């Protein structure tokens, strides 16, 4: 019996030994190039092998019959092949297709300065913004240091490639922000209302932007709010020369903030030419809710309310040494709720949102009532379908609708405008290969205020010319409603329009980025005032006849270089923009360079982090060549230019962290050299006298502290080195 058993076992062993099949082969990519170290497995077994450096593999198996050979490799799509295992040697050659992923995919960069975690980044993360000297932790002020932006120091807003500030729209999570800045005061630039740390990513378009956005002739500034970060509870208190604030985060999902601002300490300390009747002060509160749900959805709600008051004596240019009072009580409310849901394991993504904002300026100009009220309600939904290799391609479609009420009151006279604006859009970003991406979009809009439709195409593409370099093109047509001041008086006006074409080259290698862009922008249908004597006052209320017969162009190039590599813990960026632009618009009698444009803009930003003392210092130099000066009833013959704008700013911040608290001390010096910059001139009514427009503070020193305590998120060493 025992013998029989041994015999049987031996037979079995022999049979199985004989049944072993050797599987060998070679793994290559589609072009036949060898791929080393792929993983080859026989489905459902441990049998398999790693390919060697020549892409070759070989293994033997006891399995029999028809089996699947699975090949996997990081960066390539999985492949499989059925093979017959019958003791006969099997030879296979398998070609793997490259996935389209963050490592190899080209990115459409023409006209776009973007930073987000998912996409390849150039810059503009919250820390980039707050550590930039000369940026004063204000998003838009930092954008002004980027290529394509024109330095305009006397008022808020982004002036992009020959466009006025009205041609740039600020967009939060897809929703247009009606009042991104604190209320405008003549020749006193205002800060943005939003804290850079609210946003995980900032994208600044210099033109040729996506069909998902509209109503901006030049540019969109896209801000994407933070996702829920952990479940920690913490409190932050901050104090500086102009404000005190406290905010509390409860278990990561709820944050409430309160602030009080008053610039008395700042103006007491610093020499300035403000003449306040009431020093600007304000109170504000905001709440945000940020929650992720089990069914692959997330909800974000943000609501803020602010009340700001000030009264300032502004120069009355008609009679020397006289002033008039500009008294404003501003109330602003802004709410934005967005809901995101993914379906079918991320194959479909829905982004929807609703937003409401209201802004009231109870304004008195020289004791005359001059209220400004505006209100916007909007709804938006965008559906995205991912497809193609590694789901790299996207098809987006959606719609948005806005109800806008704006009015200006001047004593008994009320100018009001109601608009119901609706847009539908669709866009597809397709990857033909990792090297070639094409984005085709279309957008159609209707505005009830002017009773007109438009439909426009948007096209962009990008091609990878090397491992680190790429070229990109973007173009399209952009429409925008005329400014409210014109629509109050003439509702027969049509959309203003611009056509963009942009070519971009970018090379990004190991911490260094160089990009250059050439652009041409053509303006059409700009609103023109007829038969008026030219008045250069940008704050005047237009009263003449208007039509859409204006036009213009802007052309030029810009360059950007960033180096985060050469200096240890250092970061340097250099920007230069050249702009050649003329336009026939507003009350200009002919096509000339607009007063807000400057030919050459450059900036150098340097940041250095000192690990030992956990201190970051930054130095920024910016230069803008002179802007044209036009006088009252100017003949636009020989054009005078202002002197060049120059500014050197410095900032330092020191961080102190213990287990349960995180303290940041910071100090800023703006215009270190106290250069007397001139942004233009204001004229007396008869045009005989003119006065310089200067920044209200020549040199500004500002400092403060922010202290967070409670459960903190861990910060690794690396997190701080890279400041």
């Amino acid at each position: 019996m025992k013998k029989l058993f041994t015999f049987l076992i031996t037979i079995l062993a022999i049979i199985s030994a004989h049944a072993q099949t050797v599987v060998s082969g070679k793994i290559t990519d589609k072009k036949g190039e060898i791929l080393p170290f792929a993983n080859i497995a026989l489905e459902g077994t441990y049998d398999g092998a790693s390919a060697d450096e020549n892409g070759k593999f070989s293994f033997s198996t006891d399995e029999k019959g028809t089996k699947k050979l699975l090949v996997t490799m990081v960066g390539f799509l999985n492949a499989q092949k059925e093979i017959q295992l019958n003791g006969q040697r099997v030879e296979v050659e398998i070609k793997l297709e490259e996935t389209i992923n963050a490592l190899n995919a080209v990115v459409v960069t023409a006209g776009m300065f973007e930073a987000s975690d998912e996409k390849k980044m150039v810059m503009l993360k919250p820390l980039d913004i707050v550590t930039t000297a000369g940026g004063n932790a204000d998003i838009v002020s930092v954008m002004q240091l980027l290529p394509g932006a024109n330095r305009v120091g006397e008022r808020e807003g982004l002036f992009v490639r020959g466009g006025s500030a009205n041609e740039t729209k600020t967009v939060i999570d897809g929703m247009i922000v009606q009042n991104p800045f604190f209320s405008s005061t003549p020749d006193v630039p205002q800060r943005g209302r939003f804290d850079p740390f609210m946003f995980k990513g900032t994208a600044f378009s210099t033109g040729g932007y996506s069909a998902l956005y509209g109503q901006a002739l030049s540019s969109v500034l896209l801000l994407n709010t933070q996702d829920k970060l952990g479940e920690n509870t913490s409190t932050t208190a901050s104090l500086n020369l102009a404000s005190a604030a406290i905010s509390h985060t409860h278990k990561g999902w709820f944050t409430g903030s309160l602030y009080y601002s008053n610039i008395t300490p700042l103006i007491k300390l610093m020499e300035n030419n403000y003449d306040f009747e009431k020093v600007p002060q304000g109170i504000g509160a905001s709440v945000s809710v940020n929650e992720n749900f089990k069914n692959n959805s997330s909800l974000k709600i943000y609501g803020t309310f602010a009340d700001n008051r000030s009264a300032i004596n502004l120069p009355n240019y008609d009679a020397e040494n006289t002033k008039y009072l500009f008294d404003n009580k501003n109330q602003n409310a802004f709410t934005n709720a967005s809901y995101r849901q993914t379906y079918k394991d991320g194959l479909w993504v829905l982004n929807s949102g609703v937003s409401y904002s209201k802004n009231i300026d109870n304004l008195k100009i020289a004791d005359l009532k001059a209220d400004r009220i505006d209100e916007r309600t909007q709804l938006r939904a965008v559906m995205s379908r991912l497809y193609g290799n590694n789901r790299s391609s996207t098809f987006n479609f959606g719609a948005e609708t806005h109800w806008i009420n704006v009015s200006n009151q001047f004593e008994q006279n009320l100018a009001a405008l109601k608009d119901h604006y609706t847009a539908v859009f669709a866009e597809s970003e397709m990857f033909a290969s990792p090297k070639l991406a094409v984005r085709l979009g279309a957008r159609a809009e209707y505005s009830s205020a002017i009773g007109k439709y438009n439909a426009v195409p948007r096209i962009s593409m990008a091609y990878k010319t090397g491992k680190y370099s790429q070229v990109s093109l973007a173009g399209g047509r952009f429409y925008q409603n005329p400014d409210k001041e014109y629509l109050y008086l003439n509702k027969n006006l049509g959309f203003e329009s611009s056509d963009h074409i942009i070519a971009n080259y970018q090379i990004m290698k190991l911490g260094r980025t160089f990009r250059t862009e050439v652009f041409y922008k053509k303006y059409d249908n700009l609103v023109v005032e007829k038969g008026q004597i030219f008045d250069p006052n940008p704050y005047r209320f237009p009263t003449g006849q208007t039509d859409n017969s204006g036009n213009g162009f802007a052309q030029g190039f810009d360059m950007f270089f960033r180096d985060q590599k050469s200096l240890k813990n250092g970061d340097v960026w250099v920007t230069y923009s050249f702009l050649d632009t003329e336009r026939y618009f507003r009350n200009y009698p002919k096509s000339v360079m607009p007063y807000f444009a400057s030919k050459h803009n450059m900036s150098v930003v340097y940041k250095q982090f000192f690990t030992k003392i956990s201190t970051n210092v930054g130095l920024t130099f910016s230069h803008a060549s002179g802007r044209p000066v036009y006088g009252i009833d100017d003949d636009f013959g020989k054009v005078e230019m202002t002197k060049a704008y120059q500014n050197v700013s410095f900032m330092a911040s020191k961080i102190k962290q213990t287990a349960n608290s995180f303290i940041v001390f910071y100090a800023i010096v703006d215009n270190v050299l106290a250069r007397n910059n001139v942004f233009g001139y204001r004229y007396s009514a008869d045009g005989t006298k003119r006065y310089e427009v200067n920044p209200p503070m020549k040199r500004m020193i500002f400092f403060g502290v922010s202290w967070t305590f409670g459960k903190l998120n861990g910060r690794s060493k690396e997190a701080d080195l890279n400041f």
Partner: protein
Amino acid sequence: MKKLVLSIALAIGSMATFAQSEKFVATMTEQAAAIQANYENSYMPMANKMERIAAAEAKEWTPQYWMAYCLINETFKLKEAAEKDLLLEKAEGFIKKAESISPKNDEIEVLKAQYAIAKLSVDPMSRWQKYGADFQEALKKAEEINPENPRVPYVMGTNIFYTPEGFGGGQAKAKPYFEKAIAKFSTFKSATAYAPNWGKEASNYFLSQIK
């Protein structure tokens, strides 16, 4: 005779199934030991083998765990940010699978903390907010599930060790964590010969570096 053949057949049959699980234990024990002993070489050959086992043993969490462990640790040997992200993207899939096989597992939570650190170090400046939070949360969960897991204080200790003093880190602050880890390691017994058991030697090494 018939009975004999039948019983032999049954015996062989059960041997085969026994052999399968024995093969699993033997292979995993060998592989887990090799992975945990590796510092200098690439993890990829071991990852490849683990990936095959993970595919064949869809009901076991350990192969999924070790696969992700290999990929995460491999990223610290790479230079290119995008390459690291590709590996981490793959690792994330294995972590999710491991979690679905074995929910509420302290070792998987510790691995998630490791994953968060790996993600963070690719681009610390823009990622510390999200992944710093994920790191803390994962370790907190691990400790809730099993307060005796020595890798919780160990991983916490390494993070503090590499954080500059100005940011609440430093060697002195890391020391008690390593001491706590060593104490826990002295009583820790891994559930199987191939379950995670790393960190003891490294804790001793870090302690020896602290003056």
